């Protein structure tokens, strides 16, 4: 039990030194850390927003809207494919309802040909189908979503959304956001040091789907006011409409979407000197824009952002070269925000903020300062007490405890873990468990001495008999920590992580390492008496 071969002593010392070395970057002031980072990697613990101050925003995607969008895209591709098929296949009575797309193939004999045309559209790269195809009454084709298709679509949409948000926040400048997907349809955005998240929310909450649509100039204004449109048209909100009516009717077809942009910049309208946004299409988008403007000179076209018309200027001449200007009721800030959103692309799904927390930097700083103060005083008190009660063995326990704290910090740094307030609770519990392990051992040694054992034997028995209780106590804590990690949400997980790391390091330092020191001391001095 007390026999430590030399190689084991070496190994334990190396583990100790490496473990503590990893804590160094987290303890240095950020300036020194930056200097150190030029020479060696500096893994650092992140402070949770509750300690560091900052904003936490939880976004949730509207999944029903995603399937609607998929259905719409499917209809588009099916219509185009049928038109382009050679010979053309006429379809009629197209309807989208209950997540299904169905239509009649006018010529019964062409149903099989239509199927052939559709198959490549609904198959994906992995060989499975995103949509199931069925035929009703001989000529009605029904496409219903395959469940795997919905999941993949959501998964891809969320990945894209995450990238888009990342680009948008980065455009704001020096922030260091953490953006992670959570569960199926959520994204967490955390920005340390940002206490007024209004600008951020305005930026990430917008879908930024830009479309250009032709205005239905034949529409009856009375009908439009009631929200009714002719066949082939739709009514959209238009809050800044110069006619005073907050709606406008636009043609469903013949427009183009603004997702093929290479550039978007805030600018000023040369005529009115008001803030505006210039956009530049890529070559394909530019050609389509040129074609649309060429065919519709002197007509009005509506610039639609997220389903709302922001302006409806007249096409005075065809626009070649793919550069256009969007004017509307912009301020400098909103023009800037819109250009950032357009540059980073539209969100593939609408995201809603379901949870938001912001902590002011003063409160966070106060929490850290007082938290650290309390930790230092509390730990010192424990160290003094342990020394007073157990003397030399208390000193061993104390050094082990300090090393334990450093090692927890080190492991957390390497794992890039986040320290939150509940994490501090985990720390307290861990320190308690580490102290308790040494108390158990030392009390047991006392008992064994009292029973008349000789010093070396008493120490051996002390470690051996106490180990059982230490093992059981720590096992139960591990079980609790794992369950908490599985079932808990954010802050509780922070607690669980610290607990898991702490249990491992505290058993290592409080049991293995103190035993090594004790054994070295015993070997060196061959004590016949022990005050403990």
């Amino acid at each position, binding site marked *: 039990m007390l026999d430590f071969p030399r190689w084991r002593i070496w190994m334990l010392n190396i583990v100790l030194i490496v473990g503590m070395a990893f804590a160094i970057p987290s303890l240095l002031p950020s300036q020194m850390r930056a200097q150190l980072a030029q020479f060696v990697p500096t893994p650092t613990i992140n402070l949770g927003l509750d300690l560091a101050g900052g904003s936490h925003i939880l976004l949730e995607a509207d999944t029903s809207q995603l399937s609607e969008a998929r259905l719409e895209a499917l209809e588009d591709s099916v219509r185009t494919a049928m038109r382009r098929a050679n010979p053309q296949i006429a379809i009629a009575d197209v309807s989208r309802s209950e997540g299904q797309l169905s239509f009649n193939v006018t010529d019964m004999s062409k149903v099989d040909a239509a199927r052939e045309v559709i198959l490549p559209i609904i198959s994906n790269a992995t060989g499975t189908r995103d949509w199931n195809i069925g035929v009703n009454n001989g000529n009605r084709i029904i496409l219903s979503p395959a469940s795997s298709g919905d999941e993949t679509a959501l998964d891809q949409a969320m990945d894209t959304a995450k990238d888009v948000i990342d680009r948008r926040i980065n455009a704001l400048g020096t922030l260091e956001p953490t953006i992670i997907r959570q569960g199926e349809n959520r994204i967490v955005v955390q920005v340390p040091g940002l206490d007024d998240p209004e600008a951020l929310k305005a930026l990430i909450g917008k879908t930024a789907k830009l479309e250009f649509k032709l205005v239905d100039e034949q529409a009856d204004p009375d009908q439009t006011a009631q929200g009714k449109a002719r066949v082939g048209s739709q009514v959209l909100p238009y809050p800044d409409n110069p006619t005073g009516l907050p709606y406008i009717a636009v043609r469903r077809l013949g427009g183009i979407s603004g997702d093929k942009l290479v550039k978007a910049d805030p600018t000023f309208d040369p005529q009115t000197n008001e803030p505006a946004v210039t956009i530049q299409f890529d070559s394909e988008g530019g050609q389509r824009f040129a074609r649309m403007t060429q065919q519709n000179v002197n007509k009005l076209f509506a610039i639609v952002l997220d389903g709302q018309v922001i302006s409806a200027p007249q096409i005075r001449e065809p626009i070649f070269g793919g550069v256009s200007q969007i004017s509307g009721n912009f301020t400098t800030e909103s023009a800037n925000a819109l250009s950032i959103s357009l540059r980073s692309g539209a969100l593939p799904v609408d995201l809603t903020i*379901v949870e938001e927390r912001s902590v002011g930097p*003063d409160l966070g700083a106060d929490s850290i300062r007082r938290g650290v103060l309390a930790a230092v005083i509390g730990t010192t008190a424990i160290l003094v007490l342990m020394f007073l009660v157990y003397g030399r063995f208390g000193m061993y326990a104390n050094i082990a405890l300090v090393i334990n704290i450093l090692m927890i910090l080190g492991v957390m740094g390497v794992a890039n873990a986040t320290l939150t307030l509940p994490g501090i609770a985990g720390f307290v519990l861990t320190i308690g468990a580490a102290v308790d392990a040494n108390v158990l051992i030392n009390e047991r040694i006392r008992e064994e001495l009292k029973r008349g054992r000789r010093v070396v034997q008493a120490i051996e028995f002390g470690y051996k008999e106490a180990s059982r209780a230490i093992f059981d106590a720590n096992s139960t804590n591990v*079980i609790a920590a794992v369950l908490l990690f599985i079932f808990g949400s954010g802050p*509780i997980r922070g607690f669980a992580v610290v607990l898991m790391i702490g249990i491992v390091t505290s058993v290592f330092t409080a049991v293995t390492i103190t035993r090594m020191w004790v054994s070295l001391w015993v070997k060196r001095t061959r004590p016949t008496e022990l005050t403990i």
Partner: protein
Amino acid sequence: MKLLKLVRDDTNIDFLRWRVWAFAISLLLMAASVGLVATKGLNFGVDFIGGQMIRATFTQSATAPVTELRETVGSLGYGDPTIQRFGAENQVSIRMKLPEGADKNPELANAMAEKITSSLKAGHPDVRIDGVDSVSGKVSEELFSKGVLALLAAMAGVSIYIWFRFEWQFGVGAIWSLVHDVTLTFGLFALTGWEFDLNIIAALLTIIGYSLNDTVVIYDRIRENLMKFRKMEMASLLNLSVNETLSRTVMTSVSISLPLIVLVLFGPDVIFGFSMAMAFGIVVGTYSSIYQASPILIWLKVGSHSFVPTDEVTGSKAERIGADFGAQP
């Protein structure tokens, strides 16, 4: 060097003598806690019921104008606010329900926060907004159910472990004392009206961890003594075990209380409730290991027959029983 002794050697306190009384008082307190939670309710934070919480400090004032705030914020047309001091006298938290329809349209929640903060700033130029939390109904329901689930899973998981490592009676004793500790802590929060949020769940988990640690240590000693003194009466055996581990129990409780007392006195205001919960839990957890977890073993008829000693143990024990014999009272 003369070392400090917190507990005198060879204590022989008849702890178990008061077991029926202690159990009755515990049951009474637990019933009171359940009653308090049922009638007075817990002061749930926005984490668990949804809504918006704004924290503010009036940097130039000694105390926060709570009554006046209640009127100004109440007159904004969003319903009556819950306003509470937290931490220092000049710090408040203002809690509101989210406006109707805010689940669909987060702009409404934003607008409300904006209106409240600007009305605060208008009336009090020295106000500092320390944080805004908005939690939608859906998310708060999730946080609540996940918190409860985590708590139950942890309690069940560790009890099952104890059952496997010891005997089923020990598992029952462990889970009973955990239920005891958690219930009393709930009662404390219902009684004081301290805010109950996610951090308090973390505190409860710490209490569970600590209380269990304590229980395991005593159980381990009980098991050891059951195998050692095969003929001793159960009550005396429990007393012996509690007394033998008493020095350790006191030492550990004192050690762990030290940082907690410091946290309560000097720690950040935001975690006052949290630190108090843990400090309370240490006391209750220590008590429950002695007066709940142990006597249950008598009532569940645990005896030396519960453990069959292994050869290895009997070998070393036989020698020790002889050595200990004189030391026994």
